[in-house]
């Protein structure tokens, strides 16, 4: 019963979205709590005796800071929610595709959507000769499928249909929503890490007597790095299994798994889009290989957002 499997996947992804929405702010608050604790301890060293000013009580300080932290996260999140489609388009240099520009691609997408009774997503095209594609979006109005010029020109109709069906499956499974939400939160951590790093360099160049401040910033960096790593691992963990599921969904939609397998073989020859260097965006792609000279494959596997393409082809061949 593949049908029930899919519904379970959708429900699980909705739960995951919710858990992500809750756990990231919790992680962030925990991080700030530890930072504030060290700041307060540092301040306490300067105020011996009983007349503690408020700046020494880390609990009070933390409670005072909570609303600010939550509000800034909410504001960031709202901006990202409203603007992520534009941001991704800008980061990849993709242009939206109208029906009259390329009826072939438009029809492939539209027919697949009709056959599943889903609302048609927007179609974007990246002007690049390599072969790749991705889906993005949070809700019905922002869902979109982006294809590179190379993938449109170098694949035949059946193969391109398979690729598009794979991306549509990501949208149907709500994979894109979980992914975009996690990208937004990881972006917040990346931002904090960047700020902490810069202020450390700034403090290093500043007064030498401010030793405590330097230590606090060092702690902040370590904490941020840990939080960043956790959120990265979380993100990779949720994204790999769904590639297999999306492949299966595509096979179910087109009834031509061999066409998708052929397309993956072709894609694996040249999946690097030179224009897109941003790794946050690259993990959305249909195939996201890591450029690596390292020998240890397990390390690569830990951080890879996609399973190896040979394994995916092998699984698709079993559908026939």
């Amino acid at each position: 019963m593949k049908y029930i499997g899919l519904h379970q996947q959708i429900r699980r992804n909705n739960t995951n979205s919710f858990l992500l929405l809750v756990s990231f702010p919790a992680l962030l608050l925990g991080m700030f709590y530890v930072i504030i604790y060290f700041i307060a301890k540092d301040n306490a060293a300067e105020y011996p005796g009983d007349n503690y000013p408020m700046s020494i009580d880390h609990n009070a300080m933390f409670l005072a800071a909570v609303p600010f932290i939550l509000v800034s996260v909410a504001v960031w999140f709202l901006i990202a929610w409203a603007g992520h489609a534009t941001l991704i388009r800008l980061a990849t240099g993709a242009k939206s595709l109208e029906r009259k520009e390329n009826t072939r691609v438009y029809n492939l997408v539209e027919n697949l959507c009709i056959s599943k009774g889903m609302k048609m997503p927007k179609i974007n095209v990246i002007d690049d000769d390599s072969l790749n594609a991705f889906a993005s979006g949070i809700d019905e109005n922002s869902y979109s499928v982006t294809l590179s010029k190379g993938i449109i020109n170098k694949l035949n109709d059946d193969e391109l249909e398979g690729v598009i069906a794979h991306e549509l499956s990501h949208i149907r499974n709500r994979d894109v929503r979980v992914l975009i939400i996690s990208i937004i939160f990881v972006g917040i951590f990346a931002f904090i890490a960047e700020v902490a790093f810069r202020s450390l360099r700034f403090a290093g160049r500043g007064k030498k007597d401010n030793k405590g401040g330097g230590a606090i910033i060092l702690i902040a960096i370590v904490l941020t790095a840990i939080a960043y790593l956790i959120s990265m691992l979380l993100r990779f963990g949720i994204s790999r299994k769904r590639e297999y599921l999306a492949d299966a969904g595509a096979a179910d939609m087109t009834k031509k798994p061999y066409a998708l397998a052929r397309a993956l073989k072709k894609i694996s020859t040249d999946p690097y889009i030179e224009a897109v260097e941003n790794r946050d965006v690259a993990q959305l792609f249909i195939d996201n290989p890591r450029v690596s000279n390292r020998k240890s494959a397990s390390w690569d596997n830990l951080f890879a957002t996609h399973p190896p393409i040979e394994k995916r082809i092998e699984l698709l061949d079993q559908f026939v």
Partner: protein
Amino acid sequence: MGFIIFIVVIVIIVLWMVSLYNRLVSLRNRRQNAFADIDVQLRQRHDLVPQIVETVKGYASHERGVLTQVTEARSAAMAARTIDDKIVAEQQLTSALQGLRVQMEAYPDLKANQNFLQLQQELSDIENKLAAARRFFNGATTEYNNAVETFPSNLIASNFNFKREIMFDLGTDSRTRMEEPPAIKF
């Protein structure tokens, strides 16, 4: 005590029957919504047919029989109101259009006409979308029919007038046409 258990069992059974009934209703609604997707394509086909007929008339005026057949099938399809009537009428239109396409093979001038080629392209585009919408509709219909006919929801279905509904497949007409061997005349 026994009485309370009896009441609880009754309530559970009633709630269970209500949920079965609601499932049947939502499946029937889903099938009807799926037909709305088909309707969009059908209406576009209705708009396209007169243009095709006009273009063909200029080249093959003595194919009047096929052309009237298409025009009549179109009016009948547009007059149909219920889903079942529409399905039957549209199947007629589909086979009439297929008949027209076969006849037009004999007119090289027509096949070279840019306007006609474009119309034919549009028609095949609509037919493809129709096929996709039909797949979705038939999926919804199968799910509904399964619920109507399998135990235990069939008990509810038979009491509240849920009936097996028809699929939108290729009409019997065009199916026999496809299955019969091509006629060879000398």
